């Protein structure tokens, strides 16, 4: 990695954050966490959940991921970890896994009181990049990418909306779960990773930016984890 950039290391080290690593955009989240100075661990078995400060459920194909969760006993383990208070963040397919209601389909983990509409925009030709506002997280507009994205179409009373577009919600959280239908990890946007890490006990100095000016689309290719 280049060393000609300011150190973003957090001032108070928390526990490492897990990233569910069965399929999908895993390295992209690793790269964002690495940029914040937050260590991560790839989660492939229930034992990998021990000692984590939180877990990210990445984007990928939710039908594939939900099947693999069951195959490897991670559905039960994640529900149990949730019951014990582990913070969770689902991006795109991960948000579908967390949702209690999945329009016209069966829910998966069902841990968050939101309803999602899968693949709400259509085909890949309807995928897009845009900037969103999430005033509770960052003062500036944040670039994010929607890839065959779902929409959050309803949130329960325990859930607060963090960002919305006309007609649908794009980011929301409750006391324990964060759900984003877009991919900040495919953009320079660090605000959501920073926010989630804070919820997991990490503390960052004011100087940690919401956007990483050094980000490139190939950043994930540089990720090398000790556990991989």
């Amino acid at each position, binding site marked *: 990695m280049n060393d000609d950039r300011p150190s973003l290391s957090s001032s108070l080290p928390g526990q490492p954050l897990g990233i569910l690593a069965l399929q*999908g955009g895993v390295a*992209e989240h690793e790269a964002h966490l690495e940029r914040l100075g937050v260590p991560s661990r790839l989660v492939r078995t229930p034992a990998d959940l021990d000692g984590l400060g939180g877990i990210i459920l990445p984007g*990928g194909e939710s039908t594939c991921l939900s*099947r693999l969760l069951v195959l490897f006993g991670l559905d039960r383990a994640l529900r149990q970890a949730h019951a014990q208070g582990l913070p969770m963040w689902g991006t795109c397919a991960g948000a579908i896994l967390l949702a209690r209601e999945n329009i016209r389909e069966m829910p998966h983990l069902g841990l968050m009181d939101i309803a999602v509409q899968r693949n709400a925009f259509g085909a*890949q030709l309807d995928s897009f990049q845009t900037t969103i506002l999430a005033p509770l997280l960052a003062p500036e507009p944040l670039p994010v*990418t929607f*890839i065959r994205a779902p929409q959050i179409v309803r949130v329960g009373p325990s859930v607060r909306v963090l960002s919305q577009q006309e007609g649908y919600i794009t980011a929301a959280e409750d006391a324990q779960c964060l759900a984003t239908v877009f991919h900040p990890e495919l953009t320079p946007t660090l605000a959501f990773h920073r926010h989630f890490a804070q919820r997991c006990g990490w503390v960052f100095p004011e100087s940690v930016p919401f956007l990483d000016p050094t980000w490139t689309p190939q950043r994930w*290719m540089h990720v090398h984890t000790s556990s991989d």
Partner: protein
Amino acid sequence: MTDDRFAINAQLAQMLKGGVIMDVVTPDQARMAQEAGAVAVMALERVPADIRKQGGVARMSDPGLIRGVKKAVTIPVMAKVRIGHFVEAQILEELRIDYIDESEVLTPADEECHIDKTAFSIPFVCGCRNLGEALRRVAEGAAMIRTKGEAGTGNVVEAVRHMRTVNREIRALKGLSREEIIPFAKEHGIPFELALKTRELGRLPVVNFAAGGIATPADAALMMQLGADGVFVGSGIFKASDPSKRAAAIVKAVAQFKNPAVLLEASSNLGDAMSGISLEKIPAEERLATRGW
């Protein structure tokens, strides 16, 4: 294709990483593939093993069939066009599938030019046997690469050869000084800027899946351990005795491709794999991988 569109298209491939893309010829097979955990399906009229057996000119599938597959599943749908057949690609873009495979499995329409993929908004995946071929396709606008292997054989040997060749050539490139890249790029037929980029990244600049001859969970894990980001399985599933079980087992093996305990379990009691063909039995003119350049 704008730079932004290319980035989004390359990023869809990123979301497929660690997954299995399966060939299907009917909506029922597509549903079964999705149920087994496929991250995408490739809709076609005949799997490569049948194309190989039946011969004749293999073309883009009837859009009616592709539409049927699209309706049957919620995962991304891919379909193949002939190398260089940009009108077949225009038709599939109009059909709004998720990814086009400009594929050597079909009979090439152009022996000189591949499709100018930058002229499209829809993403393309293209095959390669080596680094030069991969980067020429990226230069033409491919947002995803797959090593070709030899489709429809159930024999993984060519897939291994192509993946090892790409890896070896990238290692060679990494060891070169800047001025040495010029002769390397010339020798391999690579645009200089892409050679430079690949050297810096130490890997192909887009997601790279393995394809062609993968028939077992062990084959799939082998390709993953050799550095593939995911795998395509064509004839290997629906030419096996128990497609549903085999499909699920390959998905499982790819998800934990370095875990021997998982691989042991995934490999057990699957019924018969497709019988397969040894490569020496295939005359040079019937090899699919040599189509395209």
